């Protein structure tokens, strides 16, 4: 029984065609849906050897080991070493939800200079990581929530994005009731008051449903919290003059707290007191404590920069290496006694402040949407009760009234080089005037608090609220 | 009675970087049925290659080869032949019995009694349950012989069957091979253990550098023995007996004659007696296979690279 070579060669070729067709037309499309962990963009920015290790099986194990290693970097504060590890781990095992969550939190919050000024160059990376994590783990709400949180709390500006992410988180089955409350908050901050209120009401309905089935502490607490939130919100709405228009009636001539708009009277001055050390002074005519004016110092040509911020989600790619030769620093200037005086020392963080370009921009930005409730009561959710004689701006954030202005600094000024070697660079807004307020540094602020008030025995009103 | 093996201008060549090398170079073999045939040659002469061609394990480059009147390569003849390779290794985790059963299954035979009988035949009846790793070399060779007998072959190829064995094992194997002849089997032995071949083979072929140098009946090939005569005679007599193909030497009254056995030694003996000499010894020296072998291989010498 000799073998028939021609027949065998023929059958081998036939099988080759069959397997190819099977593999290409049936298995590969299914494989892509079910088992592919490597989405097109993930490979970018990884060395080939890392890729090889990543894909040769053992992903989860190696990811675990790497994550342990990253932990030691966290401990030692070696942040630069962590970024590639986070990237590699999430690539190896895109199901490591905690690594995504911790990683993006870490990139967004911990990449700062010595005085915790935020290095905003990394925010898009953190966002992209969150987005990728959410795409890889669509079955859980967690990374949708985490990404939303980054928009809500860290970026603290474009609340529509936070709403978008949290609405997606809302669709996942595993979302915790307590995590849903925050979507109502995001609606409010985004100016979608009715949606926020409806959200609370549907929360309350659900909490009551749960209460019927189980009356444990958690269920009761969720219902109480929701009720409380609704109460608070209704009060705020009426205070800010929204109840009338929303219920189809008028405010009956009462302007409530938001009218007329309040002029914050912003002005600013930036002085370079030493190379890489600047002093910022601002005025702000708001008495209550709680204002933080956003200040940005960045390269004039920083990619994707917009007024007071950046196109944060300009790319879905997780960029391991954001522009290293540029600066995008953001600081929150805390207003005390209607003024700001702040020294910013950039001399010790050359990686965050390389100062290689010629021109820099210092931006000042205030958005009432980020304001704490007691200030928002005056300014309104969209800045209805807010104005500034010089720097009111209704274009940089459509639909909102914000304060925005910018000043320019040159490299020579910041570094005190060339013409500025012996002179003190000083730039300021036209309306800036020296005020004696700046000299009264010793003035103390009394922050009203229930607990610090003297307690008279028998006086119920001074007891902490329950 | 037909020929068990018949080859015509059988050639096997391999391509090397320097060109084609004929490992087997146009050999004509003829092995009769029922005989023990010795296939002799130094290492690398082409013995194993020839056997592999005859077994159909490799294919000849040119020429023809017939085994039991069928052209080689036909696996039908595998039912009728068997092969014991040189220093074979058997799966040493298996017992002797398992080995036999395994090889039997390759013939489609499932006959435990037969396997047991074969174990007895090769004197391993008591060792069938031991694994091959516990066997001595001789035992391994015997189990090899046993497996080669599973199909009751008409023709056996044995490659160095006694190689590396101790004298007792030699004898045992030799006796087994002789038994095969009694059973009417044809045995084709490839070996350079000349003493064994000389004792058991009917016919031999000597191969060197791929060519058959001698082939024929052992008796014919070894024909041409010699006599050696030692006598005390005078020098004059010694000079008188010079003849063809006779070596004569005389020293200090002692004569040494070395002559072919085709000539009768009587004339010389009578001459010595007549010359008042005394015959000390007359030794017939039979020609040994070793002599023939060395002679054949030497004569060919280093002719071609």
């Amino acid at each position, binding site marked *: 029984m000799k073998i028939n070579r021609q027949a065998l060669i023929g059958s081998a070729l036939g099988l080759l065609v069959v397997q190819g067709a099977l593999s290409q037309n049936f298995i590969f499309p299914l494989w892509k849906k079910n088992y592919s962990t490597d989405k097109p963009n993930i490979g970018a920015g990884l060395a080939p050897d890392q890729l090889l290790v990543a894909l040769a099986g053992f992903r989860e*194990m190696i990811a675990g080991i790497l994550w342990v290693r990253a932990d030691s970097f966290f401990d030692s504060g070696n942040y630069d070493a962590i970024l590639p590890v986070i990237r590699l781990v999430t690539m190896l095992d895109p199901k490591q939800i905690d690594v995504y969550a911790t990683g993006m939190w870490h990139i967004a919050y911990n990449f700062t200079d010595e005085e915790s000024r935020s290095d905003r160059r990394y925010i898009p990376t953190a966002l992209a990581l969150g987005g990728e994590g959410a795409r890889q783990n669509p079955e859980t709400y967690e990374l949708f929530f985490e990404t939303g949180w980054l928009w809500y709390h860290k970026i603290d500006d474009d609340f529509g994005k936070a709403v978008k992410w949290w609405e997606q988180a809302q669709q996942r089955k595993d979302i915790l009731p307590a995590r849903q409350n925050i979507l109502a908050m995001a609606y409010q901050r985004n100016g979608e008051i009715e949606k926020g209120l409806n959200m609370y009401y549907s929360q309350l309905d659900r909490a009551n449903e749960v209460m019927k089935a189980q009356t444990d502490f958690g269920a009761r607490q969720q219902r109480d919290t929701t009720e409380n939130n609704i109460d608070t919100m209704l009060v705020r709405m009426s205070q800010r003059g929204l109840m009338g228009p929303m219920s189809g009636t008028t405010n009956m001539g009462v302007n409530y707290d938001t009218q007329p708009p309040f002029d914050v009277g912003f002005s600013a001055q930036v002085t370079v007191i030493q190379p890489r050390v600047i002093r910022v002074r601002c005025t702000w005519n708001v008495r209550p404590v709680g204002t933080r004016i956003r200040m940005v110092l960045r390269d004039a040509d920083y990619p994707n920069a917009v007024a007071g911020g950046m196109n944060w989600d300009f790319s879905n790619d997780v960029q391991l290496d954001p522009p290293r030769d540029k600066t995008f620093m953001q600081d929150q200037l805390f207003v005390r006694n209607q003024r700001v005086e702040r020294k910013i020392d950039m001399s010790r963080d050359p990686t965050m402040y390389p100062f290689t370009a010629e021109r820099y921009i210092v931006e000042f930005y205030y958005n009432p949407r980020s304001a704490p409730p007691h200030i928002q009561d005056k300014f309104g959710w969209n800045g209805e009760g807010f104005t500034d004689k010089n720097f009111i701006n209704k274009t940089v954030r459509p639909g909102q009234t914000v304060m925005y202005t910018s000043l320019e600094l040159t490299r020579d000024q910041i570094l005190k080089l060339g013409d500025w070697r012996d002179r003190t660079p000083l730039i300021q807004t036209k309306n800036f005037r020296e005020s004696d307020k700046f000299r009264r540094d010793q003035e103390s602020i009394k922050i009203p608090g229930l607990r610090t008030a003297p307690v008279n025995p028998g006086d119920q009103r001074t007891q902490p609220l329950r | 009675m037909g020929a068990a093996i018949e080859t015509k201008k059988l050639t096997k060549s391999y391509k090397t970087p320097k060109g084609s090398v004929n490992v087997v170079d146009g050999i004509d073999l003829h092995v009769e049925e029922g005989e023990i045939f010795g296939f002799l040659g130094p290492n690398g002469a082409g013995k194993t290659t020839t056997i592999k061609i005859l077994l159909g394990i490799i294919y000849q480059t040119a020429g023809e080869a017939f085994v039991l009147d069928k052209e080689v390569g036909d696996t039908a003849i*595998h039912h009728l032949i068997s092969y014991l390779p040189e220093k074979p290794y058997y799966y040493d985790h298996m017992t002797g019995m398992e080995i036999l059963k395994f090889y039997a299954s390759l013939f489609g035979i499932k006959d435990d009694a037969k396997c047991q009988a074969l174990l007895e035949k090769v004197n391993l009846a008591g060792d069938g349950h031991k694994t091959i790793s516990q066997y001595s070399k001789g035992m391994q060779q015997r189990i090899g012989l046993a497996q080669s007998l599973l199909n009751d072959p008409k023709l056996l190829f044995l490659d160095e069957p006694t190689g590396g064995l101790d004298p007792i094992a030699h004898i045992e194997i030799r006796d087994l091979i002789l038994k095969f002849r009694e059973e009417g089997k044809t045995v084709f032995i490839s070996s350079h253990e000349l003493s064994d071949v000389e004792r058991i083979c009917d016919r031999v072929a000597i191969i060197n550098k791929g060519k058959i140098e001698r082939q024929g009946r052992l008796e014919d090939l070894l024909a041409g023995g010699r006599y050696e005569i030692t006598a005390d005679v005078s020098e004059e007599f010694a000079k008188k007996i010079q003849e063809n193909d006779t070596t004569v030497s005389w020293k200090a009254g002692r004569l040494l004659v070395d002559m072919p056995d085709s000539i009768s030694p009587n004339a010389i003996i009578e001459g010595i007696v007549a010359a008042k000499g005394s015959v000390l010894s007359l030794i017939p020296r039979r020609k040994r296979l070793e002599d023939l072998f060395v002679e054949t291989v030497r004569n060919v010498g280093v002719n071609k690279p």
Partner: protein
Amino acid sequence: MKIILSIASTTVGEAVRRKVLLVILLIGLLFVVVAPALNILTARQERTVLIGLTLGVIQLTAALIAIMLTVYMVPNEIERRTIYTILCKPVQRWQFLVGKYLGAVAALGMMIGFMTIVLLITFSVSQREFDPTKLAPLVKGPLMNFFQMSLLSAVALMFSTFVSPLVNIFLSSGIYMLGTLFSPLFQTLVESPSVNTVTKLFARIIHWILPNFANFNVQNPLINPGQQLVNEQLYYITTIGYAFFYIGILLVTAVLIFDQREV
């Protein structure tokens, strides 16, 4: 068929006694058994990492065994001359080769099966999980792994008909790695707008020809139970079918080469 089975069973007997393979197997098993103790590595769920780790160990161990087993199979027979005692029997070369292959596959199956049993025991003990319906899905990983290794074994067998074992180890490992890596890479290439058409076509041809080992790596949903699968059954059936077709190609090629080979 009887001949093939005979050769196969002898091959199994030999394979399960190969010390190299047993050592590899033992190390693999050791990893599986101590895996629960390695849970310091967990970033999230113990269970996730445990499954990922143990399935990974089984896969690597099986791949090593598959290569070490198959690569030496035929060359050893030739070197020890056992092949002559077999081929001079009424055994066709293809029968010998197929028998050897089936033996290798059976041995692999036994070893993977053994590791799977140990995995299940380890898992149920360390996770206190004794519900068979929850344990059963775990078997899918090693099962597909078995088909993957059968394919790898066929690759190694095919190469073993014409290259030396040492070269074969690298060759087969290389093909295995490439076959595992290429699908994701191919996907990236094809879906990337910046890659030109010629490269894409080239990638497509390679993806068509290369044995696609990535198909058999199905541990993702086992490790991450939340993952929704599309048409799981169809995927398993087509993938196993693919394994058969591809093994067929390799065996036929191996037979064609081996039949012409001087041994």
